[in-house]
């Protein structure tokens, strides 16, 4: 953890020193969105068409984030960084740590109490500006996922310990849409084989083909600094050994300036790896380094 922190810090430091003249603040406050649980710019659970930082088409940006999801029987933390170039291309990295409950560790006599996964992401903006263009901003992206240890995935019948998700996302901000309030929505379609984000591997006895899952977010800007909304993420159910449910959350984001955002959400993840009714608090913070 400390090593990862250090890596992120040193990379950011180098990057800040290398390109000081194109530092980003070329977007309206809050329009950079948040950091998604898999590292891409987005909402909390869903990737958006917007890129991770405040860069305009003449600028670059780098962000770092930390997210912690504390649900009934599990804990998932995710941390990483994203760089966005000229509001066109976003590269992201996230490392997820999924902490398992003691009962499951004993049951499977696991050597480690956690599952780690690395995710590399690329996103390209194809069209538009979420705020200004007449049609929604449109982007395509991919997330390559690799498990550190495939014991649990294997045990549950997953076909692979790595996989790639492909998605297309559309995002639009409607100024003064509802009684003067700005409204933001995002819709994403993801082709995936992943089981629980890939933490339980990819594919399974029930299904080993790509399936298209729909994901959506809806938010209202209550003030220049506060956003409230909800998200939905459809999940495939590839493993016959354990059930997987769709995810939902209700979130509040605080964006005091273009340097930071803090998000708290209440997430309902349904059944996760044999444990039913997994609900809890999602906390996330993104720092906009430049």
């Amino acid at each position, binding site marked *: 953890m400390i090593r990862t922190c250090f890596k992120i810090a040193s990379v950011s430091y180098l990057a800040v020193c290398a390109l000081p003249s194109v530092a*980003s*603040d*070329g*977007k*309206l*406050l809050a329009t950079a969105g948040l950091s998604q649980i898999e590292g891409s710019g987005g909402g909390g659970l869903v990737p958006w068409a917007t890129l991770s930082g405040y860069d*305009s*088409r*003449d*600028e670059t940006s780098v962000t770092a984030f930390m997210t912690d999801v504390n649900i009934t029987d599990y804990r998932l933390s995710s941390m990483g960084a994203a760089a966005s170039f000229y*509001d066109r291309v976003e590269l992201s990295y996230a490392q997820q740590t999924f902490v398992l409950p003691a009962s499951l560790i004993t049951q499977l006599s696991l050597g480690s109490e956690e599952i780690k996964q690395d995710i590399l992401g690329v996103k390209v903006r194809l069209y538009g500006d979420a*705020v*200004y263009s*007449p049609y929604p901003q449109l982007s395509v992206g991919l997330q390559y996922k690799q498990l550190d240890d495939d014991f649990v995935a294997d045990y549950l019948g997953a076909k692979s310990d790595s996989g790639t998700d492909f998605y297309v996302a559309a995002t639009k901000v409607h*100024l*003064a849409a509802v*009684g*003067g*309030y*700005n409204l933001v929505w995002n819709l994403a379609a993801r082709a995936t084989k992943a089981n629980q984000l890939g933490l339980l591997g990819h594919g399974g006895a029930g299904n080993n083909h790509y399936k298209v899952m729909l994901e959506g977010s809806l938010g209202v800007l209550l*003030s*220049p600094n506060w956003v409230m909304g909800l998200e939905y993420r459809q999940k495939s159910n590839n493993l016959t050994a354990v059930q997987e449910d769709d995810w939902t959350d209700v979130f509040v984001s605080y964006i005091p300036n273009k340097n930071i955002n803090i998000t708290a959400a209440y997430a309902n993840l349904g059944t996760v790896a044999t444990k039913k009714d997994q609900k809890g608090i999602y906390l996330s913070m993104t720092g906009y380094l430049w």
Partner: protein
Amino acid sequence: MVNHVKITALVLSVFLSACAAPTKAPVSLYEEIGGQATIEAITDNFINEVSFNETIFQYFEKTNITRFREKFIEHLCVDTGGPCTYTGDTMLKVHQGQNITEADFNTTVDLLVSAMEKAGLSYLQQNRVLRILAPMRGEMLYK
């Protein structure tokens, strides 16, 4: 049967008269924010904001500020539904040749938001003004 028709006619006439009752004319955004005085305050605040921003001021170095103020007030007045006539040039002509970058455009929007805030517009009123102005961006960027 006759009763039915009578009742129907009665209900209908009550309904129609309710519809025909004089409804208050909707107040324009111009009037809601305080009319000409507020439009002028926004404009003066905006000019002030620009003069303190080195990057954005560069675009205004050769501008006749008196004329700019007059035309900006007219434009904003028309935009918000006020009783004015815009006598200036098109947005395209005004911004052409300046090659305004996206970053500088967005900074200027921030300055305008700040100008509206200082003129006393509520967050919701600011959003409504931005909604009206947003489609003009195409005639301003990289021209």
